[in-house]
């Protein structure tokens, strides 16, 4: 059962142990610098590497190559898209901040269970994937129900 969104292009499927070691790395989470770059892109809409270096450079000293590496990596992860404009690339977010948050939420169980298999813990939102439309609607009605209405 493969999830097309998770595969990284050209990469060999990692061994379980390697996958276990990689959790917590940038593959699953946005690192602080990546998050800062995404913040700038969501605010600006589009930006070149230079724009981001200038933006971030106001609060911290960052090398152009560092930011370029990060933006290339974000593009490889599918978080940024880019178009060539003359000699430079212009980047834009591949999804809105909300969509990104939703994607993270969707990946919750997959991220934890796919990577780790049988986790010995009880978590609040286990198996959120397999909920059909009828149950979704029923939960929504209940969540938004009038407090005075009988259940």
């Amino acid at each position: 059962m493969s999830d097309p969104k998770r595969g990284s292009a050209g990469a060999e499927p990692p061994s379980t142990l390697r996958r276990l070691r990689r959790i917590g790395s940038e593959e699953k989470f946005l690192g602080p610098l990546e998050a800062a770059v995404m913040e700038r892109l969501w605010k600006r809409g589009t930006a070149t590497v230079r724009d981001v270096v200038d933006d971030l450079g106001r609060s911290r000293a960052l090398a152009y190559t560092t930011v370029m590496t990060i933006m290339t990596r974000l593009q490889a992860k599918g978080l940024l898209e880019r178009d060539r404009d003359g000699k430079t690339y212009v980047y834009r977010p591949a999804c809105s901040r909300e969509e990104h948050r939703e994607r993270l939420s969707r990946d919750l169980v997959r991220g934890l269970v796919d990577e780790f298999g049988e986790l010995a813990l009880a978590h609040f939102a286990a198996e959120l994937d397999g909920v059909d439309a009828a149950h979704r609607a029923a939960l929504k009605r209940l969540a938004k129900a009038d407090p005075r209405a009988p259940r």
Partner: protein
Amino acid sequence: MLRADRAFGLLVLLAVVSSAILIALLAAIIPHVELLAARGAEGAADVVAIVLLGLATLGITLGLSSLFRQLLATLVLIRSLLARRVAMPARVRAAAGGLGLDGRIDVVDDARPFSFCYWFLRPRICLSIGLVRRLDHAELRAVLFHERYHLRHRDPLRLVIARYFAAGLYVVPVVEDLVAHFTLEKELEADEDAVAAMGDVRPLARALYALLPDADEVSLGLLVPVGSLSVTEARIDHLVQGRPLAARIPATSIALSFGALAAASVLAAVPGMLVAPASLLFVAAINGGVHQVRLVVHR
């Protein structure tokens, strides 16, 4: 109605009885196999002994492998998340007020909204910043009540034990069914606990709704290839209708399990490795073994 505690108690009882029978059978096989190693296989009884030894080895391997994978996976996850532990936000402190969870909550810096109860003898609760940001005070409190149920019942420990038994005792498939029932029932009871404590079903329903993925993304990844029961759908039914769920243990599973245990008892008690009871045991073993091996392969 088979509630979580009873389901777990029954599971452990059945597991202990089954283990005793199967260990007695193993003790009966070993001298036979030693003899066989000395003189080579001669008749049907020898073949039965060899196959039984193979099944026993598979059971031991599956049980230990389940235990190892669960502990390793959990340890690695917890370590990686706790490396991102942050000071408890004031909102969490406020929501946890009076719940008796002082010093038992970890908040980790992760954008994904999640919460879970972890660790074994003295469980703790882990919340992500993503969850804290997404839920309001009442929703957060409802989630904490839910997790407190798991913490008080040491559910992570019970889960490890239950899965270990289900894997090792694959010739008794009803153990796996009891694990599935226990897994579901503890969630329903944790929800019930939260609703009763809040005096209102809506904060918990809102929290659950806030964490649901988009409808068009549903079923992309079927994570646990066991049964067709969706824990969340059952929880939603339970929240909406507020009535308890009847335990559904398939009759074939019960028949196979008790057939296998009766056959193992006969084989252990009567010398000669009788083919007829052994056949019954093999059928149950194939049925449960395929399922457990699939779980290992899928995970």
